């Protein structure tokens, strides 16, 4: 089938009344989450996952995706208006966005951020649509050695590029892999790491771990400090950007989109690095770099575009290869698996309506974001006044009921408390939890593929190096590690991720 007929199929799925509704709910909830500081997209998706189990797979994915890119979009509003990044990707927008707002140009800053995000979102979605078929065709040729090395690359990239120490990142990922092995080994039928708990035979429940690690730990961290009262939001006078604003921004938007698409497609790089990269490029090539930090519109346009483009493009490896590039993407993948859909290159033939429906819904969702968000800015800002002591019980109620309903089992609740405590220890020791969730999801897959490769090569480990594609993946993983050991590059990564928290 050609791309056009595939897209027609996608729109026929995405434009049904129910799916339009779930898309709208997703982007609205996502934007709200993006606005609220202290509630990130990872937590939201973890908490709302169980709600989607009753839905058909396409509706579930459409809603979760809406939450995800809605949050990437919503974070900029608070960044500009109250000097607080609602989510990590918006951290760099704060610099010039808030300065613009203080100069009375909050409206144009918001509008440019919206336009930039829209352009980037559309391009990102377009890229997924175009790359999906060729990429899956390549991936279908992959055998066990290629997949083994690809998983290693994804784990290494996420572990190495995450905020903080590389050693800790890798250790957390390995820890996740180990926990992922708990349960009955499918090849031998032997129980591993179940400690006699019957609920663990089928493995540690993914959603439950994610919820404990992210939601629980984040609630405790937020409660450590007395409530902070947010600064007053700046009034918006006019939304319309001037002709000069548009003229100054269209090139940065395109450059930001390109940079964001690149980093989004790479596993592990993520939105923060994309938006900081785009900002740094704009400042470097600007004829008047001294304006940056004092309200330069390019400093809003480029990182916002990069942020959204990378959020969209993160779906490329997730959907076509079944290899997620970030913690949030790992959750989306987990959601798919719970729905009974096996992610990976076969998804295009086995579930075309799901895949193309999701892509079509992203276009619709991005349009909805522009239409909804600019008029609703006032509402978003008023949401900032909600105190955290009202928010965390809501999160707790949803996550507890959600977890209980997955298996109707109280053991899951105990697993969540356990991993909540692990998550809190991670926070205290400055270990980022995202690689853990990736390791948890990919660990069993890594073992299966490695076992198969070695079986075929009669135990010869060079099979991973003599296979050219596999060797290239391993080389890339090694290259990333070497790069991070070079002090100068490590410093710039630290600068790019330091505001992530």
């Amino acid at each position, binding site marked *: 089938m050609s791309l056009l007929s595939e897209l027609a199929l996608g729109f026929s799925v995405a434009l049904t009344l129910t799916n339009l509704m779930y898309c709208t709910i997703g982007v609205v909830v996502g934007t709200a989450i993006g606005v609220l500081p202290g509630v990130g997209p990872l937590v939201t998706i973890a908490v709302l996952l169980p*709600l989607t189990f*009753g839905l058909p797979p396409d509706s579930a994915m459409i809603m979760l995706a809406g939450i995800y890119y809605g949050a990437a979009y919503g974070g900029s509003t608070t960044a500009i208006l109250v000097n607080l990044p609602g989510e990590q990707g918006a951290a760099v927008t704060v610099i010039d966005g808030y300065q613009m707002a203080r100069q009375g140009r909050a409206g144009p800053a918001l509008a440019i951020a919206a336009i930039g995000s829209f352009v980037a979102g559309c391009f990102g979605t377009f890229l997924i649509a175009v790359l999906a078929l060729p990429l899956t065709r390549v991936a279908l040729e992959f055998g066990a050695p290629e997949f083994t090395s690809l998983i290693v690359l994804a784990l290494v990239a996420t572990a190495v590029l995450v905020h903080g*120490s590389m*050693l*800790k990142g*890798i*250790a957390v990922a*390995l*820890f996740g*892999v*180990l926990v992922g*092995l708990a349960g009955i*080994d499918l090849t*031998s039928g*032997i129980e591993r*790491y179940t400690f006699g708990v019957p609920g663990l035979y089928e493995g540690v429940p993914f959603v439950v771990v994610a919820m404990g690690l992210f939601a*629980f730990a984040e*609630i*405790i961290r937020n*409660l*450590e400090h*007395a*409530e902070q009262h947010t600064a007053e939001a700046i009034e918006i006078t006019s939304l319309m950007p001037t002709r000069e604003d548009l003229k100054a921004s269209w090139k940065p938007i395109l450059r930001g989109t390109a940079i964001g698409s690149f980093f989004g497609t790479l596993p592990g790089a993520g939105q923060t690095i994309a938006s900081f990269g785009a900002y740094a490029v704009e400042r470097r090539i600007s004829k008047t770099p001294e304006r940056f930090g004092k309200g330069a519109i390019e400093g809003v346009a480029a990182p916002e575009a990069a942020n959204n483009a990378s959020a969209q493009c993160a779906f490329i490896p997730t959907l076509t290869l079944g290899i997620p590039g970030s913690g949030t993407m790992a959750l989306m993948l987990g959601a798919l698996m719970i729905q009974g859909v096996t992610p990976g290159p076969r998804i295009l033939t086995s579930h075309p309506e799901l895949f193309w429906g999701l892509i079509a819904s992203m276009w619709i969702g991005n349009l909805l974001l522009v239409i909804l968000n600019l008029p609703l800015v006032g509402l978003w800002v008023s949401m900032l006044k909600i*105190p*955290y*002591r*009202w928010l*965390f*019980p809501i999160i*707790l*109620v*949803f996550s*507890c*009921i959600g977890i*209980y*309903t997955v298996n*109707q089992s*109280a053991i899951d*609740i*105990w697993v*969540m*408390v356990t991993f*909540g*405590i692990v998550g809190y*220890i991670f926070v*205290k*020791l400055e*270990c980022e939890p995202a690689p853990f969730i990736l390791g948890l999801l990919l*660990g069993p897959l*890594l*073992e299966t593929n*490695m*076992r198969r490769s*070695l*079986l075929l*090569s*009669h*135990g*010869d*480990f060079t099979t991973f190096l003599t296979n050219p594609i596999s060797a290239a993946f391993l080389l890339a993983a090694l290259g990333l590690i070497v790069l991070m050991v070079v002090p100068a590059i490590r410093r710039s990564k630290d600068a790019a991720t330091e505001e992530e928290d």
Partner: protein
Amino acid sequence: MRLTKDLLSGVMFSVFGLGAAIIAHGYGFGSPARMGPGFFPIVIGLLLAAMGLALIVQSLRHPETDEPVERLHFRPLIFISAAIASFGILIEERGLIVALVALIVIARFAGREGSLLELAVMVIVLIAVAVGIFVYALNIYLRLWI
């Protein structure tokens, strides 16, 4: 010796890694060509322990780069854990509504702010919303009372 973040993470990862490898030793190692169920966990466990060891060495050789662990806040940790645990027990013993009341009320003690009236309103509103969404809108089977 100072209790620092890298040092403690190193110790934690080494212990977990070694422990996992030792437990997996009983599963059967097999050979690379025929990986036993213990093969992969042992390799990963030892790698994890190696990472932990590297963190310890790094922290001891460059103590200036390692920060001391911030104070642990036991109040939210204990009350949130207790709130979730009571929910887990009560939902099987007493049904959803009692479990939710316990969850919200106990969690309230994790923070320090807010009046009793506010708490009462929150309990009522959240139970109504939760029952509305899960029981009526999503048709999930949950016993309200036992």
